């Protein structure tokens, strides 16, 4: 990292544009952290990266049997397995990223206390790792679409990156917020799994949001609702895309992200001292 310029070290202030520039400078480190996490995750497993498929796949099978077949939860007219898998795919990406981000500083404390780099690299790296998992797991979705004979709408292919961006920032924003608290109050990691489980049931993953009837707007507060609904709308053609809802999700996510980043930057200066 040979940069000829001057570095000035001063008492830290909160977020500035320079931080983004700095992250760009360290993009190679971001790559190496992601690469490390992927390598390590599947290094000692027998089926390796297939785990990324196995988890949502098994969840889909279980949900299809109990909620689809036995409980007969409606699925907006599409076969339940593909309906729930679309939801699970995004949900898994969101929930695993959220918990990984919130623990990213603690689990790397040996590095955080010994070397300087923009701390935001760590959360970004863990989400990127989960994004790779998402891509692997979407293979199953493609298989299911073949099996059930669904053709994706053109708009679906265009809109998926956008949905991923929303999910990415939702997990980042919430995760940063939790990560900042986690450094000081270590009980976050005990509450979080419980909280995520609750959140799963207030997000239309295993049921369509139409089931809530006139209370559907309550679900809309949750940004993941907009994402999952839009994903189903475009990939499975269940309904037209609700642009208003999507825009709302977008705005909500950016507010969340802003709060998360500010909290994170505020705590950043103490990380090395109290971790």
């Amino acid at each position: 990292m040979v940069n000829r310029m001057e570095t000035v070290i001063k008492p830290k202030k909160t977020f500035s544009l320079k931080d983004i520039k700095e992250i760009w400078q360290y993009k190679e480190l971001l790559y190496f952290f992601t690469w490390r996490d992927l390598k390590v995750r599947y290094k000692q497993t027998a089926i390796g990266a297939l785990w990324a498929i196995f988890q949502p796949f098994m969840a889909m099978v279980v949900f299809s049997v109990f909620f689809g077949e036995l409980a007969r939860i409606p699925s907006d007219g599409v076969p339940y397995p593909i309906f729930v898998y679309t939801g699970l795919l995004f949900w898994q990406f969101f929930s695993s990223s959220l918990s990984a981000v919130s623990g990213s500083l603690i689990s790397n404390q040996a590095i955080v206390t010994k070397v300087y780099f923009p701390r935001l690299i760590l959360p970004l790296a863990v989400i990127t790792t989960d994004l790779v998992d998402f891509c692997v797991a979407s293979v199953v979705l493609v298989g299911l679409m073949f099996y059930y004979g669904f053709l994706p709408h053109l708009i679906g292919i265009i809109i998926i990156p956008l949905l991923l961006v929303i999910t990415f920032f939702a997990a980042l924003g919430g995760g940063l917020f939790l990560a900042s608290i986690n450094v000081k109050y270590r009980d976050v990691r005990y509450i979080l799994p419980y909280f995520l489980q609750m959140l799963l049931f207030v997000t239309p993953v295993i049921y369509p949001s139409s089931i809530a009837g006139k209370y559907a707007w309550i679900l809309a507060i949750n940004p993941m609702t907009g994402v999952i609904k839009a994903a189903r709308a475009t990939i499975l053609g269940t309904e037209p895309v609700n642009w208003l809802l999507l825009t709302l999700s977008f705005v909500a996510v950016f507010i969340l992200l802003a709060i998360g980043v500010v909290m994170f930057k505020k705590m950043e200066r103490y990380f090395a001292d109290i971790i």
Partner: protein
Amino acid sequence: MERPIIEVSNIGKKYNITHQRGRYVALRDVLANAFKNPFKFAKHKAKQIVGFETKEEFWALRNINLEIKKGDIVGIIGHNGAGKSTLLKILTGITPPTEGEIILRGSVASLLEVGTGFHPELTGRENIFLNGAILGMTKEEIIRKFDEIVAFAGVEKFLDTPVKHYSSGMYVRLAFSVAAHMEPDILLIDEVLAVGDAEFQKKCLGKMEEVTKKEGRTILFVSHNLVAIQRLCNTTILLENGNVKEIGETKDVINAYLKSRSGAQSGQIRSEERHNTGNIKIIDIKIADTEGLSLINSDSKLRIKIKYSSDFKEIIPDVRVLISITSERSQNMVLRLDSHGTSKTLGEHIASRGEIVCETGVINLVEGKYSIETAFYLQDTSRGYVKAMSQFDVITNIDKYDYRLPPDKNVCDHIVKYLFKQDI
């Protein structure tokens, strides 16, 4: 004149002790407190916000001003808790200062611990890349230096083995090797030479010398290893209680440091024991090598000076002086210096007040702390004695030793020379 490469002005770092104590505060407890005692909690919070709360503040560093020129190799020494590591952490940016400003004109890399970010599951090859990236090297840089790094560490055969299967020596060698091949303008090093076997330490020192002297790099080097500091650094900073106490030529600063330390530890009389002799008093014990340096190496010859006084009129008759040196680690006596045991018969009648100088041969002691007991035995019928205990450190100069010194043998009856001087 060229501007200094590192400019430190008025740096201070404050820690709140209350803050420190709450290492792992549980949110649960905070909430429980708030509910149990809402009034007190509110009062406390209000105080915190207004700033009336009496927090215990601790300045780890205060008013640090330094200018370091390009190409300087600067050592930083000081007692534990003097602020050495905090200063380095601020310089690397790991923790921001509370006040002041630092300007660094050039790229910075730090070596606070070898093997930072090594992952046990990854192979040696993978860890070189990961660790290199964490330390701030670019991918091309690592690829360019890869063979050199591997050769220096000597792990060619195990490149594709996960490092968890490495011996600790191999692990450290690989870690240091990656770090040693960085090419920053400013390199900050904290106590990394305290690892590995003697041979590897020697190699590291050599490598560091090569890196620094050839390429005109600026280095800040924190260490307790005074020998390494003396060898590598041209300027040294002595920190004490968060302030710069001394800055200048390495030799002078080290001497000042040892002096400040000897006040506290080395050579100070720690305990005294007497029996039947109320009138002889050991005033002072000074331990140095025969050249007068208070930095004692494994191959130094000791010169021990004992100052004493007594109530005797002119001479103290029939005295035997016995100095015994014991390793604090093994609790074995390693040297026994007896005024009666030397080849020459010594004057057993010594002046009533004066100094006794005892010189030894090469001590051949391993690095560590030693306690020294000096005793005067009265050989007359009273059988009285007076003993004083003190302590000193021995440092192994890894330059001169190709091997680890054997564990201390019981080297009794060393060749010694006793000199008895009268106080004027």
